[in-house]
């Protein structure tokens, strides 16, 4: 595939006077697991709804799998699997009927529908519950059937809008494993979430938006450099002293903050400097009880970016 799976240029959507998505430039290459991050109301769901044709952009271009995708484009949707945020399905249908009727819309044969239905219900943990009405499903089970229907047609692009929302911790771990499984199948996953840990564990690329504006788009490694996250080392000593404070301040790795016997070093380097710090503390007569690294991850980067934009 020589074109990006998703490419938007200056994509804009307003609701009245409020700009929900503001000149969004987004590129998702094939076989990426691309996380789409932003606080509530950032414009994530609006962007996704434009990608799947539920909303029409006000301006800008939107290409999916190399084709113009703005508006009602069934041919593109044939190649996309989409799971909405908190999906709602017809309550009178059973899980099996839902997958069967959606399979018909994808033009799947009867045999193919039957096989995929059984396979997907098992995959999402609903084996044995396929003949129950969706109206009787719990919120978590509706999320699971939502994931199953998104994967029904073996789509080239899977778009998941907050797939873990409403799930218990076990369910969240299972969803993460499912996403990892999808990627192994060679599909591209575009996946919105406000759970940073989830994105960090699952995605290799990330785009962060806030107030409809793109704040960052790149690899997870890039984001730590771009956002200059505040990495910290927190030392708990047996007993604090001025000598130890002076020894730590003399180190060229950043600034030091002391409170009783706890010293926090705000690092300005990405190197592993724990040995140097340990030597400095010992040299000043201190005894380290605990040394813990904090920050430096996606959460700090996200907070820095969103904080700057706010």
């Amino acid at each position, binding site marked *: 595939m020589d074109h990006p799976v998703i490419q938007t240029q200056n994509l804009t959507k307003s*609701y009245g006077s409020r700009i929900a998505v503001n000149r969004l430039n987004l590129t998702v290459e094939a076989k990426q697991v691309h996380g789409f991050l932003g606080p509530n109301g950032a414009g994530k*769901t609006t962007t996704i*709804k434009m990608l*799947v*044709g*539920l*909303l*029409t952009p006000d301006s800008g271009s939107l290409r999916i799998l190399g084709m113009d995708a703005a508006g*009602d484009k*069934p*041919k593109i*949707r*044939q*190649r*996309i699997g*989409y799971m*909405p*945020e*908190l*999906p*709602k*399905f*017809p*309550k*009178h*249908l059973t899980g099996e*009927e839902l997958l069967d*009727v*959606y399979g*018909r*819309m*994808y*033009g*799947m044969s009867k045999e*193919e529908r039957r096989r995929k239905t059984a396979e997907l219900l098992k995959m999402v943990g609903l084996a044995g519950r396929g003949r129950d009405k969706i109206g009787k499903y719990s919120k978590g089970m509706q999320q699971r059937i*939502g994931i199953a*229907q998104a994967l029904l*047609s*073996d789509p*080239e692009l899977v778009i998941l809008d907050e797939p873990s929302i409403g799930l218990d911790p076990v369910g969240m771990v299972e969803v993460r494993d499912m996403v990892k499984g999808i990627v192994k199948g*060679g599909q591209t996953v575009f996946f919105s979430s406000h759970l940073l840990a989830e994105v960090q564990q699952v995605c290799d690329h990330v785009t962060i938006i806030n107030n409809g504006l793109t704040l960052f788009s790149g690899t997870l490694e890039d984001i730590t450099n771009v956002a200059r996250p505040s990495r910290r080392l927190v030392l708990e000593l047996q007993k604090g002293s001025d000598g130890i404070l002076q020894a730590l301040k003399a180190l060229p790795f950043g600034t030091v903050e002391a409170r009783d016997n706890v010293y926090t070093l705000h690092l300005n380097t990405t190197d592993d400097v724990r040995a140097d710090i340990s030597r400095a503390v010992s040299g000043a007569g201190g005894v380290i009880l605990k040394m813990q690294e904090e920050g430096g991850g996606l959460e700090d980067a996200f907070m820095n970016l969103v904080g700057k934009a706010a």
Partner: protein
Amino acid sequence: MERQRRTNWLNGFLAILYYEFLWNLRKKKIVGLFILVFAIVTLELALPPLLDYYNGVPLTPNSNVVFDFFNGLSGIFLFLIAVATTMNTISGEFETGSITPLLTKPVSKNTVFLGKITASFLTLLGIYAFLTVYVTLGGVLIEGSQNNLQLVPLGLVGLTLATMVWASLVILLGTLSKSSLVSALGSFGVWIGVTIAGGILGSVFGQTTILFYAPGNGATGSTTGCGVGRFEAGGTFATGTDNLAYMLMQWVLNGSNTLNFCGFRFRMGATETFLASSDTIANVALRDLGVTLAYLVVFLFLSWYAFRRAQIIESA
């Protein structure tokens, strides 16, 4: 990967029909109303001979039971059947949020709309076909051989089209408001408004031209003329969209006969009727069919336009 599938328009359309039938057949209000209408039709069939028997009157076979069924089943029944069948068809999808996964499947909005309308039409046709078969079998069984059975299919189509006028109004209001309640109450408001206004117009001014083009019962025509000082009761029937089935059947049977529309006026303290207009049954039926189709086209076009433009902003 099984990505190259036979995805043509027909597959999508049939899938939407299947999706709709799975829903329609499980709507409790459709089943409830169907049972009610079924019970009423049963009473219509069985009550007269039972009463005759109870009163010791010898049973006189009525060979027009089936034919008259198409004249009797109108008004509120058609409206209620239309509401029960279609009040959720589009608005229900918006209310529950199931429109979101539906519109992200590889079926165009046009196909979804067409599928839903076709499913509504076929559901109504199915309901009426069942009732018609029941009435025909019951009529033959209780009353003996029946006249004009060859016109039953035409009556069936007429009944369905007549109900589709109300159904398309219900669908239009549902698409515009995205609320089943608004669609049901709004269309009931229109129905009762048209019925009351038609009644008042008919009582005060007689069967005026405006009634020819109103949905519902429309103008009442008489095959026996307009008497002085009184309204001829014999051979009168409604000629509006609700009575399309009977009008189409009359067209085939008595197309060249004249149908008179009477007006009222006050003269020296008394009310008298006069001939306001008259036309052949064929022309009146043709106009009725045209008016029915015009309402259908206008309501469904507006509904389609609103559906095309609908954007799914909020998650339900």
